[in-house]
């Protein structure tokens, strides 16, 4: 799994609430049998018209926005459990997603792929949208070790929560399967008690 330590980057704002995983990657693109290549269809129906021409008003088509941090409205990733959503975001070059609220399954899927979900307060999220509107190049720093997110242009900072186990997985690039496989004997013993 991809490691995550510290990230400093401009942000890509998507000020929409309740972005479901059908928007992140529509179902018709789920027919692939590998994990790669979903990035080109990230937010496909918001990003392209029927003839696959980029819609100029969509943020991913605006070259003045660039960065590895996607910032979105609350309840990000609701709906379908498709991990393809996390793969698509990562494949499009993002390493972190910031929102004031994440849907559970998406959050787990992101963490299992080394894509960091950073949950901030409504006020901080609002501030992020304001700062990026002022200057698209304004940068944000995410420090996983310290669990902080900082708007570098203003110095505003918040701490964020992350499960300590998941944090160590991200920093070290471990995954859950390695963890459980190391305790397989316990699993077999448990089965005997059932």
């Amino acid at each position: 799994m991809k490691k995550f330590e510290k990230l400093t980057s401009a942000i890509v704002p998507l000020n929409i609430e309740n972005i479901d995983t059908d928007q992140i990657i529509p179902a018709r693109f789920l027919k692939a049998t590998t994990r790669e290549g979903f990035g080109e269809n990230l937010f496909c129906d918001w990003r392209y018209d029927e003839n696959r021409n980029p819609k100029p008003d969509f943020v991913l088509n605006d070259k003045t926005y660039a960065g590895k941090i996607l910032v979105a409205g609350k309840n990000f990733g609701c709906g379908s459990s498709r991990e393809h959503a996390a793969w698509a975001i990562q494949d499009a070059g993002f390493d972190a997603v910031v929102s004031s609220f994440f849907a559970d399954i998406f959050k787990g899927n992101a963490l299992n792929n080394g894509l960091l979900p950073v949950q901030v307060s409504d006020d901080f999220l609002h501030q992020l949208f304001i700062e990026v509107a002022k200057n698209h190049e304004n940068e944000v720093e995410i420090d996983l070790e310290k669990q902080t997110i900082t708007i570098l242009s203003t110095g505003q900072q918040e701490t964020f929560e992350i499960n300590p186990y998941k944090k160590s997985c991200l920093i070290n690039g471990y995954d859950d399967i390695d963890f459980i496989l190391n305790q397989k004997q316990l699993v077999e013993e448990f089965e005997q008690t059932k």
Partner: protein
Amino acid sequence: MSKTLVEKIWNAHVVKSEAGFPDILYIDTHFIHEVTSPQAFDGLRKRGLPVFRPKQTIATADHNVPTLNQHLPIKEELSRYQVDMLTKNCAEFGVELYGLGHPFQGIVHVIGPELGITQPGATIVCGDSHTSTHGAFGSIAFGIGTSQVEQVMATQCLLQQKPKTMKIEVNGETGIGVSAKDIILYIISQISAAGGTGYFIEYAGSAITSLSMEARMTICNMSIEMGARGGLIAPDETTFEYLKGKEFSPKGEEWDKAVAKWKTLYSDADAHFDKVLTFNAADIEPMITYGTNPGMGMGITQNVPATNKQAVPEQLSYQKALNYMGIADNSPLLGKPIDYVFIGSCTNSRMEDLREVANFVEGKHKADGVTVWIVPGSKQIEQQAIAEGLDKIFEAAGFQLREPGCSACLGMNEDKIPAGKYCVSTSNRNFEGRQGQNARTLLASPLTAAAAAVTGRVTDVRELLAEHV
């Protein structure tokens, strides 16, 4: 100490619990389908691992399958490839597959219960968010991502944080024309599409316990539409009666032992829930959604809520949703012309749904210009519907009975709603593009959908039911 049902089942499945780590939770039953499993099988190959407990994994093909001419090869190349891949993977790893052509094939959340594989007190997962459906039997059932599918295949366990618990009580009796679908759409409209996030929900109260198993599945199915990964209902005589004699239900002495154990599965009277909500069944009318998430629903006689009544930061997203739907705020939906009716999906494609619709449309005919698809949840349901003569009733009404699969719930096969068209759908999600690019979905119960099919408009089914009296 008093415990909730979720805690009882959870605790009975904890292999290891250590401070600072998620619990290692043992999984009894793992359902898989063609869309979210190929990368997991691939992961096993890369690690050189087998499926650890193949007998506890059951596969079916549902998301991609056509709903006409299932005996022919799948026309769409990528769909065919994905379904073939499932067949190959199951053969290679020793997993039982109820694929196309098998008499048990169907939507994964329909076949598990109807075969008696879904049982009270079990832990059940699937790479599909509507796995919450199985909670209707008093089990801990939830959707997972593909990395977790791989994890369960490799270890029969998941690393999971214990969820918070919520109790939702619905008391009293529902009125005429109000079904389980209306109850759950009402709850979601009250607490929003995110209101259950972080919780497992236990549904209780007389309006819930009086429901049939199929209706309970409709309720639990949509738990995820308020963000809750799981929803469950304590098992009772209704549950045992449903399971008795099913293909994989315990038999003979084993049955008696199982029922004795299942009878211990309830929340203790003074158990602590992290949140408790109470609703009155009499307040619920037939429901319909007007927006692009399942929380955007209302009683069918209501007006679409005003944009300026929404919290200020939410107004932009709210207006975006209404623009997509081509629906104005402050206006009624009753009488709005519709183009398609879809009766199907893991929410409402079971025998009772089909019988209710058939009973309603017998002697009626669909309105001109409306396309009506009925997609049964499984091969067994399709066969049963034909055996009961429902196919004839549907045919006479101009409703097309198709073959089983997920179909137009998410349009991964050919069953797509065209751009701009309105579909009254018994499925579970009204997200943008869910039923086809730029399609517009109005979620409702099977009865409300059938009423719309007959009139060609959004209709209060109670008015048509009253005509019978």
